[in-house]
């Protein structure tokens, strides 16, 4: 139980990452693969934020005067995750547009039937 309470955020984040990877490896439908990329992205973001967490810490914003700087969580992972979220959105939009073009060209989204995409 001690292990679980110490590492629960890591376990959740890597659970999401593995679900995303499994979808990418196994599924045949292109839309499902893109959804897997989205889930993997969320897991990575959650992991980076969890690394910067400090027990019983507050958000790194000095909105009131009585806040203690020692109790604040690390701001650097949060700033990096901000970058990562925006890039994730950009990647998803580009992937969806490519999926639209593939569907228009081949008439299907099944990766087994698209000849150049077979693995």
């Amino acid at each position, binding site marked *: 139980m001690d292990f679980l309470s*110490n*590492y629960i*955020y*890591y376990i959740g984040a*890597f659970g999401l990452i*593995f679900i995303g*990877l*499994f979808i990418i*490896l*196994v599924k045949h439908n292109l839309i499902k693969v893109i959804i897997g990329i989205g889930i993997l992205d969320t897991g990575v973001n959650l992991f980076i934020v*969890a*690394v*910067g*967490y*400090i*027990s019983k810490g507050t*958000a*790194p*914003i*000095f*909105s009131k005067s009585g806040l203690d*700087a020692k109790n*604040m969580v*690390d*701001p*650097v992972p*949060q*700033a990096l995750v*901000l*970058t990562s*979220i*925006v*890039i994730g*959105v*950009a*990647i998803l*939009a*580009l992937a*969806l*547009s*490519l999926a*639209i*073009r593939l569907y*228009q060209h081949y008439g299907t989204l099944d990766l087994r039937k698209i000849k150049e995409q077979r693995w």
Partner: protein
Amino acid sequence: MRKIIGIILLIIICWGIILALHKIPFGIPKTKVGEYYIDKGREETGAANIVTSVVVNYRGFDTLGEVTILFLAAIGLGAVLSNFKEKGKRKIELASLILKTGCRFLFPLILLFGAYIFIHGHLTPGGGFQGGAIIASAFLLVYLGCRGRIFNEVGCKITESLSGLVFIVMGLIGLTVGGHYFLSNFMLTGQINTLFSAGIIPIIYIAIGLKVGSELTGVIDNLMEKS
């Protein structure tokens, strides 16, 4: 077969990650640079929100790259969907009066909320990217609610280019006038926790907010019109 190979691959990756991570404890301070930003960030940048001061001031160059990536993705999406063959006009079903009036009522309020988010980025949680996403959601509401409205695409592009220019020009002014590095904070930092504080951070965040908002609106426009 693919499932078995996938599960074996995942188990190998999982084992490697456990080996790497089991010595890293959870919930204790780990980096010196984060402590430095929290201790000195208020005096050096004047922003109450330390994450904002990291994003725009200490790592402003990173943010410029991020904005460039979003711009490239929007351009790439437009290029991929550009010569799309029209399969005949789609039948547009007009929305009911209640939906239209609701959209017209909510649209300026959502714009106002997005502007609030990115203007107060140095004081409260939020910032340019979040505010830009909210502004794009307002345009998405118009798209879904009031069919048949056409956006001014040229205005979108002009806003986007001008705000990108503002970002780079502020960086170049910092290079010449300020501390001899790109995007240095050359303006007065002012009183902390007030709206007119933190030097160049609010200006750059307003530029980022407008740029992200118009870019995401362009993405929505491309995806809705050409697919």
